[in-house]
């Protein structure tokens, strides 16, 4: 889920921060510049992990800013394809479900990536998995789920790219820079609660389950 990214950058330290220790001042400046921001095709930056190299501080002409060339490593949120993650169901609609990771809620599970057969219940505002034996399992809002990362989509937010709507008007508001598409269609995925309770049953009466020919365990 998390990686380290090595970045080299020119960091400027303002005079009011001169009272801080150099290492701390540089770290603060890096964190202010990067924390909680998405770098295109890299991921969402959390905070600085460690500093590898820093040059002497040089004061530029005309300003009182100290310029330092720093090489550092950043903690970055970047799930890989096929990774199993914990998340929480944030909302649902006909298209699928949005999962909240707290860091970001741009995780989307399209309905095609859910257990078969599942349907959307507009009354409950939730997706329901209904295996052939007649039981119904609800993907309730706020439930902690396990999901598998399938792919990611990047949308370049370069200021030079101007987005236009269908009438040719310039769109001022920008969309998300990054979206993760995930799936929940293997046994073990979906709300953690489902599988925990099933294990109990399994231990208690595995024999019984086999006799009944319970398809649920063999599903997916």
């Amino acid at each position, binding site marked *: *889920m*998390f*990686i*380290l*990214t*090595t*970045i*080299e*950058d020119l960091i400027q330290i303002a005079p009011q921060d001169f009272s801080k220790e150099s290492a701390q001042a540089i770290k*603060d400046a890096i*964190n*202010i510049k990067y*924390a*909680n*921001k998405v*770098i295109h*095709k*890299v991921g969402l*930056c*959390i*905070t600085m*992990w460690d500093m590898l190299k820093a040059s002497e501080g040089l004061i530029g002409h005309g300003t009182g800013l100290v310029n330092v060339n720093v*090489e550092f*490593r950043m*903690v970055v949120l*970047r799930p*890989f394809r*096929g*990774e*199993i*993650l*914990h998340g929480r169901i944030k909302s649902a609609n006909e298209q699928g479900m949005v999962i909240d*990771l*707290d*860091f970001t809620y741009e995780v989307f599970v399209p309905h095609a990536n859910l257990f078969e057969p599942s349907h959307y219940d507009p009354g409950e505002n939730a997706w329901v998995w209904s295996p052939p034996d007649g039981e119904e399992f609800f993907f309730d809002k*706020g439930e*902690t789920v*396990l999901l*598998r990362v399938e792919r990611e989509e990047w949308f370049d937010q370069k200021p030079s790219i101007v987005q236009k709507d269908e009438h040719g008007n310039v769109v001022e508001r920008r969309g998300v820079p990054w979206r993760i598409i995930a799936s929940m269609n*293997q*046994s*073990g*995925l979906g709300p*953690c*609660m489902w*599988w*925990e309770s*099933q*294990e109990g049953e399994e231990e208690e009466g595995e024999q019984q389950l086999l006799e009944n020919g319970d398809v649920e365990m063999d599903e997916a």
Partner: protein
Amino acid sequence: MHIKNPQSALLSNHEVYQHIRSESDYYLSREHNRDKTLSNVREILQDGLRYFEGDPNAAGDVAQWTNPAKEISDCHAERPMTLYKGPHSLLRALAPKYRLNKAEYLQLYNVRPTSRITLELIIEEATTRFSEEELDDMLQQVLNVFYEEEANIPAGVEDQEMEKLPDEMLGDSRRKHKKKLKRRA
């Protein structure tokens, strides 16, 4: 800005949680709370704490679920590195018997499977690569490592120099693998 290496290392959730906690001690302390320029840093740290520790403001009737990263760090509060290095690490427990790749190890740390169903999610083609007994044993080994009493781990094992594992991790070094194949041919 220049990205020198977009992915120089992988981190486990547990490591990131430790990092977020120590950064929070500094950035969320009272003297830095007032600094407006640091607001994005505080936001991401609070998001991180919420992901790993759960929402402190959540309604009481919602069953709170704890992220494995928090449980693991509660179990290994004083010396978290014993999980990664030395004879008490996950690698040393599993590598002699099972060949797993890096991503699989990482997810054992992150998801901390407690049941066969979750273990089989993490291990690719689990049932063809391993027998049922092996998977059960693997699960037991994982739990042993994570829930080992810290007091029972001798001091300094995390810094102990250990012999390199004879069998490389699966998919660890492509060049060596090629050599092996040639020899076999």
